[in-house]
Every structure is written in structure tokens, then in C-alpha cells.
């Protein structure tokens, strides 16, 4: 008994000693660090960016813009964590490890809208501001995050529908090529379109082509056959699917732009080139370049100021080959 007791006492002293050593080592380290940082003109703000990763032209432009904006020159140290094959789990893992690292702020583009409550609460407990980029969360509880910066999906697809109404005052048959069901982007783009499109426009079919050119081509060639080519309009919810539909139209011996008009959303270079060649008819931009807005939001959040919870990025539309040709040389994405 007494032997174990004395051992415990010894172990306790040893532990305290080790801790004391550790603490001094720690403080020594941190003081050295702070002096170093002070030497290099102000400390860098660490930002964790939980991103979607390579997905298409738009996403690449958006994430590149964010990475370029939060540069070392601007006083940021951005840690970029793209999802593994669009998997939400890998995003949640990245998000929690950013919390554990104690970054100053987190930027999040969620692959799935739901299931973020618990990790966002953890970030709140750790007092780390979270800024949602592009993709929102559902249910949209604004108390869980600082701000949501995105172009207005509903408004953009409504503007596309307005153009379609003006083009076909006597009505037409149309097809919607949507993204994977369940995404907030898809729901919003459907909502804006359905609310605005005229009643004399007849929706033949709404199919998912998973944002993919190849799938859109395959889907639309079958839709054309099922309706004996009697389709006048395609509303493709991204550029890639619109380009796939254009290929299917050409394959069927029709002319995209005259026989079948194609609307796309995003406004990447590839789509604008196709619009300038007359293969697409209307491209609504979904502006990916909002890095500067994100910097402002992060700075004011860190300074403790109140930030608007919903910030809309302005976007433009292109309705003619001329407009596309004009915009192409300065297109960044």
C-alpha cells in the first residue's frame, strides 16, 4: 500500500513538473512567434476554406477567385480544403479540423444543403465566424452563420424565363435540364423559372442531367425523339448541360439557335463562345467573382461589426451573339 502511495506521489510530482516545463515551453514559443509576426508587419489572418473542388468551369473560377483574393499580400493565410468527390462527410471533417486548429474564420461552400447544424454550432461555440459562399444551407437558420454571399439564383432564372416569354409570345414546348435533385441551387433555379414562365409555355419534361455535358446530350437526344423534334426551347440550369443539348440538337439534324433555342445559366467562356457562334441563345451569368465582397465581410465580422446575413452578388445576362463577342475578351472564367 505505502509503496503504491509513494509511487503515486512521485508520479504526481513528475507530472506537475512536466506540465510546468510544457507551459514554459509553450509561452516561450508563443512569445517568439508573436515577436516574429510583429516583425513581418502584422499577423496573417488564417482562413479555412471548405470548398467543393473541381466540378466545372464556374466552380473553378469561383474557388480560384477566392484563393486569389485571400492572398498573403492582403494579409490572409488561406487553407483550401476541397471535398473528395463531392462528399459531404469529407467537408464536415475538414470543417471540424479547422475549428480544432482554431482558424480565425471559415468559408463554406456546402456540397449538400442539409446536415450542417451541429458543426456550425461548434464553430459558434469556438467564436469562429462562418461565411457561406454560393451554396446555402437548409433549414436556413441565419443565427448559425455570419453571412451568405451568393448571386441570386431565383432572380437569375426568373430573368431567363422573362426572356423566354418575350421570345415566344404565342407559347412553345420546352424542356428543363436540371442538376441533381435536392440541391438548393436546383430548387431555386426551378422556383424562379416556374414562377415567371407564362402559362402558354408547355413544359414537356424536366430531367436531371447531373450538370454533365455527356448526360445532357444523351438525355436530350431521347427527349427529341420522344417528341418528334417538337421542342422549341431548352432551359439548361448550367452551361455544360446546355452545350450537351446543343450537340444533341445538331446530331438530330436541327439547328440550335433557330430550331431549338437554348438558355443556360453560369456564363463561362465556353458558353459565351457558343453564344457568339449562335449555338446557344441566352446565357445568364451567375457571377463567381465575389472574393472582394467576401474579404469585406470577413474583415468586418472579425472586427465585431454586424454584417448583413444575405448578400446578393450582381449578375448580368447575355442575349445576343454580339453581347457575347463583346464580353469574351475580358472574360475571366
Amino acid at each position, binding site marked *: 500500500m505505502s509503496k503504491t502511495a509513494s509511487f503515486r506521489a512521485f508520479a504526481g510530482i513528475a507530472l506537475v513538473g512536466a506540465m510546468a516545463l510544457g507551459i514554459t515551453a509553450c509561452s516561450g514559443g508563443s512569445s517568439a512567434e508573436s515577436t516574429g509576426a510583429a516583425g513581418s508587419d502584422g499577423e496573417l489572418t488564417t482562413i479555412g476554406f471548405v470548398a467543393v473542388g*473541381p466540378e466545372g468551369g464556374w466552380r473553378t473560377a469561383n474557388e480560384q477567385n477566392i484563393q486569389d483574393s485571400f492572398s498573403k499580400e492582403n494579409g490572409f493565410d488561406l487553407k483550401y480544403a476541397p471535398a473528395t468527390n463531392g462528399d459531404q462527410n469529407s467537408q464536415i471533417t475538414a470543417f471540424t479540423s479547422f475549428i480544432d486548429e482554431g482558424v480565425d474564420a471559415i468559408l463554406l461552400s456546402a456540397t449538400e444543403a442539409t446536415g450542417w447544424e451541429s458543426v456550425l454550432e461548434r464553430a459558434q461555440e469556438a467564436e469562429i465566424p462562418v461565411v457561406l459562399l454560393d451554396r446555402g444551407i437548409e433549414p436556413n437558420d441565419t443565427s448559425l452563420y455570419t453571412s451568405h454571399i451568393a448571386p441570386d439564383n431565383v432572380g437569375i432564372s426568373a430573368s431567363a424565363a422573362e426572356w423566354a416569354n418575350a421570345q415566344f409570345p404565342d407559347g412553345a414546348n420546352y424542356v428543363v435540364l436540371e442538376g441533381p435533385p435536392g440541391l438548393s441551387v436546383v430548387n431555386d433555379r426551378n422556383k424562379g423559372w416556374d414562377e415567371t414562365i407564362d402559362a402558354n409555355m408547355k413544359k414537356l419534361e424536366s430531367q*436531371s442531367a*447531373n450538370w454533365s455535358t455527356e448526360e445532357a446530350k444523351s*438525355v436530350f437526344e431521347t427527349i427529341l425523339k420522344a417528341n418528334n423534334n417538337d421542342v422549341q426551347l431548352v432551359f439548361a440550369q448550367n452551361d455544360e448541360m446546355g452545350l450537351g443539348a446543343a450537340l444533341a440538337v445538331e*446530331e438530330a*439534324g436541327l439547328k440550335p439557335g433557330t430550331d431549338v433555342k437554348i438558355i443556360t445559366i453560369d456564363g463561362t467562356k465556353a458558353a459565351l463562345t457558343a453564344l457568339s457562334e449562335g449555338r446557344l441563345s441566352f446565357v445568364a451569368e451567375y457571377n463567381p467573382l465575389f472574393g472582394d465582397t467576401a474579404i469585406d465581410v470577413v474583415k468586418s465580422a472579425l472586427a465585431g461589426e454586424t454584417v448583413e446575413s444575405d448578400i446578393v452578388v450582381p449578375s448580368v445576362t447575355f442575349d445576343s451573339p454580339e453581347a457575347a463577342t463583346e464580353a469574351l475578351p475580358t472574360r475571366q472564367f
Partner: protein
Amino acid sequence: MSAPTPPRASIPRSGARQFAVSVVRQPYIWAVVALLLLIVINLIKDPGYLGISVNATTGNLSGNVIDILRASAPIMMIAIGMTLVIATRGIDLSVGSVMAVSGAVSMEFMNSSGDGSVGGAILAAAFAIGISAVLGAVNGVLVSIVGLQPFITTLITMLAGRGLAKVITSGQNTSASNEPFRWIANGTVFGFPVVFVIGAVIVAIVAVLIRRTALGLMIESIGINPKAARMAGIRPIGILISVYIVSGILAGIAGIFSTASVMTVEVAKTGLSAEMDAILAVVIGGTSLAGGKFSLTGSVIGALLIATLDKTIVFLAIPSSATPAFKALVIVVICLLQSRRVRALFNQRRAPRTPSAPTAPAPTAPRTTRKETVSA
């Protein structure tokens, strides 16, 4: 039960009848039935579904059947490779990623060389298939020599492969223009889509290599009992490596097919969940995931069925949110009908009616005896 040999086996039959019976007894018979059923459903929606016409502007044959053949070609390729791998008790989850790598290599190559000639297309395809073969070889070596589990090994190549595709194209969807390469997926020879013709030729080559030599038997024996196969003098290492290489090459060809169709590689989308389609085609074709006996014909039919199913969903305008459920439903039904127990149930009920000339004496099996006396 101590029932003697069933009476059906002892009845002599004509050749044609025997053939018909042997076809009906194939495990993939339900896939054929489902295929016909889907076509009938499409015909009900549009009586002209099977019609093939010459397109006035492009001069090519066009029709739903042509589209189905075209869409089935890539699935057929990966399904054939998957069949061989599964027959050795393995699995190849990397086929979809290898498709992406192959597409990325060929597009990037043609994009940077800017070569629109036939030579450029052949070089790009050869390069893509070569890299796919290397990926297959990596799988084969890890499985056979290192002895890793096929599931884990190919899962690693699946993740690494898509990463590799992203590195090759620096994360961008890459397009290229090369008319001969585009022709592979969109052109026709003698009215048939080129992809399907190439696919059919490749299937025929593989079938001859496998079935006209002892290779098929060796693959089956490895799948049934690797130890016994080794005792019998079969070297599993060489066969395993070549099976995975073949699967890699076929996936590479599938990647060329699917990127050539739009002349764009979409690094995150090309070949996505293609391994699932391949495994489904194999299972629908009646090859057991436990290895051993395999059916190449079955897998080809499975690939055709999946392509038809995908096209039918769009043709019938099934809402996109319901498509996965519809696809799953059809496949569950086919798999159920193929399961040994359900088939046994069917056979039991059909057994008394099959002998058309009941000359054989009534067997001792009680159930059959009762029914035969009733019918006689």
C-alpha cells in the same frame, strides 16, 4: 429427399427444342424478358419507337434503337472487364475512374497538340489505353503478388484515379477538336453506330480468347477454388494480373467512347458511378459475385438492359426525382427473379407441365406423382 433423377432429363428431345430449353434455363433469361418488356412499354407510349429512319440533313441512320446501341457500348466494355475480374473472385471498383483518366489523357493530348488528323486521334487513343493498362496492372500486382483484397485495392485506385484525372487536366473540364476522334462515338458504319461496332468486335475478340482457349476455364477455376487451381498447375498470379489489365484496358476504351461523344472530359463526371453500372450489368447477366462461372453473353445483355432502362426513363418522361427509384425497382425485380430460391419456386410449379409426351413412368417424388395422375 431420396428422389431419383428427374424424368425431364431422361426424355429425348429434338435439337431446336433442346436449344430453346437451354436458353430458357440461362440465368439471364429474365434480363432478356425485362429488355423486351421495356421495349414493349416504349412501343405502347409511341408505336413508332423501333422505327429507324435516315436523317435528311446528316445522312445518318437515326432512331431510338441506334441511341440505345450507342449508349450501351461503354457500359458493355466495363461490364466485360468486370465479368472477368468477378469470375476470379475479385472486383474492380476503379473502372469509372480509369474512364476519367483515359478521357483526360486523350483530351489533354489532343488539346495541347492541336492535331486534328487521324494520326492524332490514334495516338491519343493509344496513349489513353496505355495508361489505363498501367492502372489495371497496378491493381493486378497489388491483388496477386502483394495479396491485398481486391475491394480495397481497387477502391484506392478509384480514388487515386479520379485525382490523377484532375491533375492531368489541372481540374478543368478539357475540350478538344478532332474529327476522327469524334467519329468514334458519333459516326456510323453501314448504318450502325461506330461505338457499337467497335464494342461488339472487342467483345467477340475477348470471347474467342477466353472461350476457345483454356483461359476461361483457368479463370473460373481460380474463382471457384484458388488453392485447388494452384495444385492443378494453374499459375494464379499471371492470370490475375492479366485479368485486371484487361479490365483496365476495356475501361480505358469506355472512357474514350464516352468523352468522344461530347469531345470534352468532365473530370468530376466522366465515368462517375460507372462501376455500379458495370457490376449491375454483370449481376443481371447471371454471373455470381462469389466468383467462378461467368457469362459474357449475360453481361452484354445486362449492359443493353441498363442502357435501355436509362433511355426509357427519359422517353417516358418520368420525373427526375423518381428516376433512381424506378431504376432500382426494375433491377431489384430482375435480381429477385434470378435468385436461386425464387427460380426453384418457379421450376417446382412448372415441372409437371414440361414433359409434353409423358411416356416415362411416374417418378416416386410424391408431389409430381399426384399432379401427373391428375393431368393424365
